[in-house]
């Protein structure tokens, strides 16, 4: 495929993306960035995502989506950075703009166009190519959610309360281990944590909000 045979949607995507970048640069140069950055950035971001999807092979779509998430992160980072003045924002601004440009190049490099191939060769892009069903997204989201659940669990019940519950539920529900094995493992982990951190090393582990409420109620 060469540049002349690019489909219309491809040209549109590249034009929109370049337009969004030009809008950023224009706002930056004219000093309109502080309040005017968000709306056109969001519109440009969504339009570029929609337009570039057809250009990217199926197995690279997830990588494309992640690149757009990173672009959104850098847009947000830049927006926040413009809240500061002088030397406080000098380095972050540089990093934010470099980040935007790099993700822009990466998005273009992911496309199956001539420009994409050239950019991928120059900048050494090795995108994750994930075939449909190779890594079920639902399982990944469930795993991340289950692990992230440890945060609120610890926050509410403290380490000594959350550890056996988390270990038991994970082994039983996610790992399919027998209930008794999961139960014993949960108890073993909490005993190990208590022995090592509280008993041997004299750390006071976080007790959790629930314990704090209970202690407050008892004091009253």
């Amino acid at each position, binding site marked *: 495929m060469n540049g002349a045979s690019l489909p219309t949607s491809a040209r549109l995507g590249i034009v929109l993306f370049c337009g969004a970048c030009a809008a950023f640069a224009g706002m930056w140069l004219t000093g309109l960035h502080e309040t005017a950055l968000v709306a056109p950035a969001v519109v440009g971001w969504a339009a570029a995502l929609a337009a570039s999807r057809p250009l990217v092979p199926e197995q690279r779509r997830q990588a494309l989506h992640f690149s757009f998430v990173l672009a959104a*992160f850098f847009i947000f980072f830049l927006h926040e950075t413009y809240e*500061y003045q002088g*030397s406080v924002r000098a380095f972050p601004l540089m990093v*934010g703009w470099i980040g935007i440009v790099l993700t822009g190049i990466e998005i273009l490099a992911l496309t199956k166009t001539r420009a994409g191939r050239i950019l991928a060769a120059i900048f050494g892009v090795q995108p994750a190519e994930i075939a449909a069903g190779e890594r079920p997204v639902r399982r990944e989201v469930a*795993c*991340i959610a289950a692990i992230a659940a*440890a945060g609120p669990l610890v926050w509410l019940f403290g380490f000594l309360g959350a550890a056996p519950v988390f270990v038991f539920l994970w082994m039983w529900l996610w790992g399919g*281990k027998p209930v008794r094995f999961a139960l014993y493992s949960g108890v073993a982990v909490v005993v190990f944590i208590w022995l090592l*951190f509280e008993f041997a090393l004299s750390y006071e582990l976080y007790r959790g909000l629930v314990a704090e409420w209970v202690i407050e109620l008892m004091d009253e």
Partner: protein
Amino acid sequence: MLDAIGGMAGALGTASLHLLDLNSLFYIFLGTCIGLLFGAIPGLGGTTALALMIPLTFGMEEADAILMMGGSMAAATTGGSTSAILLNTPGTAPNAATTFDGFPLAVRGRAGEAIGAAATSSALGGLIGIFTLILVIPIVKEIVLLFSPPEFFLLAIFGLCAIAVAAGGRLLQGLIGAAIGFACAFVGFDPVSGVVRYTYGVDALWDGIKLVPALIGMFAIAQMIDLGVKGGSIAEDVTRVKIQRISDGIRATFRNFGTVVTGSAIGTFVGAIPGVGGTVAAFLSYTTQVQRDPNPDIPYGQGNIRGVIAPEAANNATDGGALVPTLAFGIPGSAETAVFLGAMVLHGLEPGPRLLFDHEDVVFTLILSLTTACVMATVIVLLLAKPMTYLTLVDAPILVPTVLIISLVGAYVINGEIVDVIVALAFGVLGYLMIRFNYPRMTFTIALVLGEITERSFFQAMGISDGDWTIFFTRTVALILVVMCILTLLVPSIRAVMERRTAVKSGAHPGGTT
């Protein structure tokens, strides 16, 4: 000069006699065991071990206290390498670079070899660092005084240039990872103006994102998410796990003695610069090794044993290097030596030039305790390597929740702040996404480590020179660093061009026999 050497020999003799005492050996052994344990548990590390040891040493004689703390200091990073290799979880921050090749080796069933190499290179690196300390004590002042903010800035830039090499063919993704790392490094107090940035009302973020919880998330939790999604065990093919290959690792270390020496030299040098520390040294050593070895038999990042040897030699050599400014000027070279300095003051020893004259025996007691602990820690790790390697065979449903909970406790106990648990989890998710979408986590980590130093030293240099940029080119050491940066960036391209030319030449004159 002869008097000085005679004095040093006398002090060395006194310290050696003290070391022969069974009590002294017991204190070193105790310190070594504590250091190994704290090093191996993610989040604790050598600094915590020393801080907790201070009250234990109150009633001891100063020499015994120094023996115990020296033992712990020398052993912590050796302990940290085992969890870095087996669980992709750096026990201490300086072990982060060890995960890049150590963990892939464990995945291939060669954990024993990796542990053997890490332990041996740790001992050799530590010993080289200590002997360098002995050699440079007389000339140390001149060396340390050569470094000021412009040199610190350029040293950080040199580390960043190494990103280009370290990305291993994924330059763009590596640079994006570095940009994210920098963005995270800007959280908290601006080092120049003191303005608080990107904290969103969370007071605990005023001091920035803490390195250890971030590393625990990026490596341990990310790996556990990956393992949770994939299932199975760390070693992908259980039948290929070789528990018997520890001696291969030891042999590999001696076969790659040049890597050990280079890593140790980098570690000692970087360790002697106050505030830079073992993490930077290990990364610099790793990236230097990647550059020195353009055509590796196994690509770096996929289980090359030299990728374990280089950072482990460097991070252990920093102990000797970091003691140079600590003992000579009372300026701690690292967080660990800062705590150690406090402990010395508690025992009535005032670090600084007078210490070298008035308490030379104490200095040599410390040096000997570090030397003994280096060897002792290695022997203990090698003895325990076999049972530890079985960790790679443990089923994911058992390993994931156990490591996750212990990692979260490790993230919490350093500062006692629950926000560090959230930070570790958030970086865990980010780390998993980076694994998933093929972004090198190494460049992210380098930028996170160097971000603050880069920004601070740049503005300090600008302040010193009244905004004159030439300060980076008119000082000898700065100029050397500039040249090193340029070479770092150019060497891969020059090498590629030369290889292409060689290929063209060999194509033009194909051997002559055909």
